[in-house]
């Protein structure tokens, strides 16, 4: 660290950010000082990333203030945040793979010499080398970035932060795609930073890591502060209680039902992403089959292949006894299959379209005569769906963008229910929606299952998978590594199959 390093002291008070239809942050407080590791936890959609963006200057809050070293700011610009020593290591890393390590670390702050201001390679490497040494990286300043693993790319980002004299390093889900030993290494780098007086703000879903490394834990729920834990108080149970804010038991309900013939069966299905793995799977009518696994285990790829978005290279898929041959979405839909995709805003909905138009889109042909849409039938379908799923909006002719996440998800579901599906695939059904809406979604899943619909539910939320599913298939690298029945459903069993 350069001499004159001054520890940061940062405080956010009553920060509020509103998007049309969604309150992302409401009166959130957060403080952090140099030499401290603070874990920021909360469910998806709790407001963590918005809060981080406020710190990084990417989002200006609508209310509240930011105090840094006694100075007050109502909003930061990215340049200001950088000047104040706030550095951000994003969840999705985008290094310039065409440049080498040194060029990446010093991008935008290149060292030049001579009257022509030519790049001074030697000075640049001399600046980068000690930082890499401090982090204990396996790569050197002149190595190409294209060959680095995800974990090394993360260290590269941290090196970049340190080269800017960062006083606060924000890590957003840094361990979500790391192996165990890589994670250990990252945690020790974090402690290293701490001992040098750097403040570390660490967002993670992996509570055991938070427990392991954090001095203090701040929890957000539905865009508000939901509590804080320090020192000995930090334990998994307490964190879960803060995140969920209610008893887990009453959150989930399960319906008892007998198992009948399979409505969806996969035999030897290989996706193009994992050509070595072949998947056999049976889903029964009225069953909720959870699909668990780590990010990148091939779950979404499998869903896309079943639904015909991507071609699968081998194997057969039978839906309700008929084979899906043409591997196209229209074929899958007319056979009785629906997909509620992972990315609601880009794949599930046409955000700028009216709610009614979104709902009618997959079954327009049934609502029209000679290709002309019958607007009355369209409207009454939308009204019926609104009532059935209790979509909260003042008008079904408003655009879907104005709805909250939970209500948007209901619109996605509504459009598929209108096609009378036999099987619905849910890919992360409650990602980014608030707790109340989650309970409603679970309730709908159960109701659909009771009506005999087969449900395949991909989810990375362990509580959700265990709480909602009748059985759980666990995937790893494209393979189904095991299927757990309801009496075997524990977090430990799932993890064992997922990590392997």
């Amino acid at each position, binding site marked *: 660290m350069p001499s004159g390093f001054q520890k940061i002291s940062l405080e956010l008070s009553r920060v509020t950010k509103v*998007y049309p*239809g969604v309150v992302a942050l409401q009166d959130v407080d957060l403080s952090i000082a140099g030499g401290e590791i603070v874990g920021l936890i909360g469910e998806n959609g709790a407001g963590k990333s918005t809060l981080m963006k406020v710190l990084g200057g990417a989002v200006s809050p*609508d209310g509240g203030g930011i105090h840094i070293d006694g100075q007050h700011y109502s909003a930061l610009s990215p340049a200001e945040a950088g000047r104040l020593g706030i550095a951000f290591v994003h969840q999705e890393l985008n290094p310039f793979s065409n440049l080498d390590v040194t060029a990446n670390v010093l991008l935008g702050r290149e060292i030049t010499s001579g009257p022509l201001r030519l790049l001074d390679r030697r000075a640049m490497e001399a600046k980068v080398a000690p930082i890499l040494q401090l982090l204990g990286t396996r790569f050197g300043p002149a190595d190409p970035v294209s060959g680095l693993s995800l974990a090394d790319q993360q260290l590269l980002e941290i090196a970049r932060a340190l080269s800017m004299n960062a006083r606060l390093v924000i890590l957003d889900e840094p361990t979500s795609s790391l192996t165990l030993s890589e994670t250990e290494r990252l945690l020790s780098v974090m402690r290293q930073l701490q001992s040098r007086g750097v403040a570390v703000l660490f967002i993670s879903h992996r509570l055991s890591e938070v427990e392991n490394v954090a001095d203090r834990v701040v929890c957000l729920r539905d865009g508000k502060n939901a509590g804080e834990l320090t020192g000995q108080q930090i334990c998994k149970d307490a964190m879960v209680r803060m995140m969920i804010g209610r008893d887990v038991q009453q959150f989930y309900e399960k319906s008892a039902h007998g198992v009948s013939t399979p409505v969806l069966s996969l035999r030897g299905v290989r996706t193009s992403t994992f050509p070595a793995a072949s998947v056999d799977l049976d889903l029964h009518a009225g069953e909720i089959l959870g699909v668990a696994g780590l990010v990148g285990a091939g779950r979404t790829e499998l869903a896309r292949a079943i*639904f015909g978005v991507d071609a699968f290279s081998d194997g057969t898929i039978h839906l309700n006894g008929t084979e899906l041959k043409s591997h196209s979405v*229209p074929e899958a839909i007319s056979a009785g299959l629906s997909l509620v995709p992972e990315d609601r805003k880009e794949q*599930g909905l046409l955000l700028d379209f009216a709610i009614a138009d979104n709902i009618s889109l997959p079954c327009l042909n049934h609502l029209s005569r000679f290709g002309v849409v019958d607007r009355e039938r369209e409207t009454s379908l939308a009204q019926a769906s609104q009532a059935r799923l209790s979509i909260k909006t003042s008008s079904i002719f408003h655009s879907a963008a104005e709805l909250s996440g939970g209500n948007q998800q209901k619109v996605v579901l509504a459009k598929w229910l209108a096609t009378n599906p036999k099987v619905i695939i849910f890919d992360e059904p409650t990602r980014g929606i608030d707790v109340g809406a989650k309970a409603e979604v679970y309730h709908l899943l159960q109701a659909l299952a009771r009506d005999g619909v087969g449900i395949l539910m991909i989810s990375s939320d362990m509580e959700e998978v265990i709480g909602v599913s009748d059985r759980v298939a666990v995937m790893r690298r494209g393979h189904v590594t095991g299927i757990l029945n309801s009496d075997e459903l524990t977090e430990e069993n799932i993890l064992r199959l997922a990590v392997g």
Partner: protein
Amino acid sequence: MQKKDIGLALLVLVVGSVVALINPRFLSPINLANTANLIGLFGLFSLAEAFVIVTAGIELSVGSLIALLGVLFVDLIVVQGVPWPVAALIVLTCGAIFGSIHGWLITRLQLQPFIVTLCGLLIYRGVARFYTKDGTAGFSFGDEFPVLEWLISGRTGGVPHSIIAFTVIAVIAWFVLHRTVFGRHLFAVGKNEEAARFTGINTRRVIVLAYVICAVLTGLSAIFFAMYTRSIHPASHGNFYELYAIAAAVLGGFSLRGGEGSVVGVVLGVILLQVLQNLVNLLGIPSSLNFAVMGSVILIGVIADTQITKHRNSRRQAVALATIKGAAPKPQSLPE
């Protein structure tokens, strides 16, 4: 009608009234009929362009196609002696073929529409000039096609047939875009192709069809222009028409990002552009400033539109903020 269309209609009325006040000749039957004729001619291919723009695509070869298909049409009936209905059918079929090639290149080979149709622009222009050996394709003295001439460039009760054709096709286009399943799919694909695909829409087919419709309508437009000019210099015939069409569509509320726009809007856009042209002529503005006037009006229109949208969004944001702060949104008091 959407709010945007009403605003545009008002603008057309205001510009028209100003021109009429300054120069009453604007409202003379001759001038009105001529303007109507031009609106019909330019409107046909502007509607064509709208079908492609709504899918977030672009068709730059409109002007070159008008030259090539026009040359082909004149050559078929004058030199080859093909009966004109057959020639017309051939021209429209050629349009359909070119359109499906564009669509195929864009959807199957994943080429960018700008590049595909830019190459079309260059290729068709070149072929048209080669076809006539850079000469003029036209009717010689004594060539007579009375039925064709009456049908395409004639008038009924003083109303040019081109504007009648434009009206009929605009009504059909309105119906297709705003009332049919296909139209809804066009908007969906233009707004978000991925979401459309996840909804089971055959996005490739929709896009290819958009380019086919565009090129067929352009073919029809080529026949009208051939009969209007009666002689075609393939090096200049139809130059810049694609840009004119894009301008009309953008004025009419179409977004180049796709998924937005209305047929009423593009019709009003065509009318406004022709009235502006008329304004330049009648007000004695040097005709060299023609494009400059057009460009300025479009720029002002687009700026006004984005500013209004921005204002509306920030107001919505303010209301949302007020709601969570507990205070009821205050109704905006209107100045008396």
